[in-house]
């Protein structure tokens, strides 16, 4: 097995030069009149609306072909239970295994809620800063993408992401993460997680547009981002976020 892998990698190396140059040629193809410089994407999350059904996690894996094992997530949902004795219990819900699991008796709970998480598409992304080959980058419309053809799999970006939003795709052996469903949003559709969310806990939109659900969201709520002290400037903003969420 090992040896075959080695051989395979060797072959890839040989063909790489050729493959890459064809990609470079393809890059000149048209993008259907979509102009990335006219958009800048962001997401709002209203914590009070999330019911923790896990539909977003399922849809994300379905839409993006993310491996189904519970170690690779582009988006996930955390459940917080703050007990009366101030102990904080966090679980990440797995839509296939434990949907209800109630480890804490209700009369011991002070408050409890669900928090959806995903790549924050930071305006100052630490992952982009550390990538040695420049394989991860910010597009003109503000989305952080990974070039799976050039990522060398050093995982420095995974270490640098404060939010745990990246994983090493076991199929391609390259870093992988949420793309805001780039193939959908460039066609005017919503990201899969936003599309299927039954309670509209997730609001997606264009920061540059003057009137949109995202604009309304930003007008209506006091907003917060995750780990603001790191100055990553996330474009995913939360309403009703609890201080215990990290």
């Amino acid at each position, binding site marked *: 097995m090992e040896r075959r892998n080695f051989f395979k990698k060797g072959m890839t190396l040989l063909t790489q030069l050729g493959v890459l140059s064809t990609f470079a040629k393809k890059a000149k193809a048209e993008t259907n009149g979509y102009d990335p410089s006219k958009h800048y994407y962001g997401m709002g999350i209203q914590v009070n609306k999330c019911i923790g059904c896990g539909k977003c996690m399922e849809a994300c894996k379905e839409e993006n072909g993310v491996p189904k*094992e*519970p170690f690779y997530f582009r988006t996930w949902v955390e459940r917080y239970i703050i007990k009366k004795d101030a102990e904080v219990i966090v679980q990440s819900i797995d839509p296939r295994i434990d949907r209800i699991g109630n480890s804490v008796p209700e009369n011991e709970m002070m408050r409890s809620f669900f928090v959806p*998480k995903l790549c924050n598409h930071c305006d100052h992304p630490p992952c982009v800063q*550390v990538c040695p*080959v420049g394989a991860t980058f910010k597009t003109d419309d503000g989305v952080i993408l990974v070039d799976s053809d050039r990522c060398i799999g050093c995982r420095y970006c995974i270490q640098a992401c404060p939010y*745990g939003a990246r994983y090493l795709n076991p199929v391609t052996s390259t870093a992988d993460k949420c793309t805001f469903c780039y193939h959908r949003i460039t066609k005017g559709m919503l990201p899969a997680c936003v599309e299927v969310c039954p309670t509209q806990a997730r609001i997606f939109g264009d920061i540059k547009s003057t009137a949109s659900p995202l604009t309304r969201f930003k007008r209506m709520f006091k907003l917060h981002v995750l780990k603001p002290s790191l100055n990553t400037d996330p474009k995913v903003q939360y309403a009703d976020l609890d201080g215990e969420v990290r």
Partner: protein
Amino acid sequence: MNPVNEHLYEMLKQVSGYIYPNEVEFHWSILIVVYPYLTGLVAGAFILASLVKVFKVKQLQPVYRLSMLTALSFMIIAPLPLQLHLGHFERSYEIFLTPNFTSAMAMFGFVYAWYLMVVILLEIWFTYRRDLIRWAETDKPVMKFIHRALALFSKDTSEEGERFDMKAVKFITIIGIPSAFMLHGYVGFIFGSIKANPWWSSVLIPIVFLFSAIVSGIALVMLLYMVVTPLRGEKIEIACVDKMASFLFIAVIIDFSLEMLDFIHRLYQSEESIKILSDLVMNRLFISLGIIQVLLGMIVPLVLILFIKLFRVDEELRKLFYFLAAILIQMGIFATRWNVVMGGQMFSKSFRGLTAYKLEIGGMEGLFMTLALLIAPFFILALLIKILPPWEQQSAQS
């Protein structure tokens, strides 16, 4: 259950508290522990060598060439663990094609090339040039060619030529010291610049790395000298070992103080991460940090050397103590690298849980590969000693 992920299901059982779901996989394996360990030895051995040339520490002359060769042989292996752990090592050339200049890791190739080519190789060449010519005169055909080629077919044996060589060596060493500082300080920066990780993110990390590198380098050359000299049937020059031990003593004290400073600083500032970091130290790193790194790797060797300095100890016992101290220090520095690299990954960036690392036995990133990588430099060193005997000059002198 997919066999590729089987170990991850195993890992799930090791998790305590909450970790982000993507954190179950342990990303930087033991190979990334080996990498800073090896580079540290390079920088340390080089700095030991420069003590002779720049600071004119005469007693260390017998180990000058040995430490240069040690630095070279470890330098050759140092990038290998990095390469081997890549998801796509066949793409590593891209670091040179499209380097991202904001990435500390992208600079590795340049720092490495500079240090290997401009510092170590050049210094060795200028040191050996005249000997190479001399050896070539009496060599058998194959070796004759090797030595002549290595001397770049130079035939200049004049006094001026030699004087220039000495000057060149001194000049390179003066450039080399900051370069060695840069090489290992840079390795520390790879970790220290990750603001997402409170265990790594510290301005002191590059400096701690540097001094632990000096410690490990001196201890390694000391070990090598004490093992190889008797094997050659020569007598260990105790003055030389004494001097090395003195430098080692100072370096360990500085290293120890820096690490204590880092520790106290963190404890006193007691930021958001302090709770999980103390959990980490108490539950996951207690043996490797408390026992191996601090107690066995620093305090015991310090006591041993201090004992020798305070009391009149006869030569045999001194050698034994030095030997013991050097071995303990090697262990301790390896544990230091382990604690930095593994410690930084054993807690969740949610600061709410711990995970563990399970060392594989076989495989690309397993125990055997690690041992192979740690032993390989010694084979290269043996080969180098064969081609470029580091003792020739001394016997000529004596």
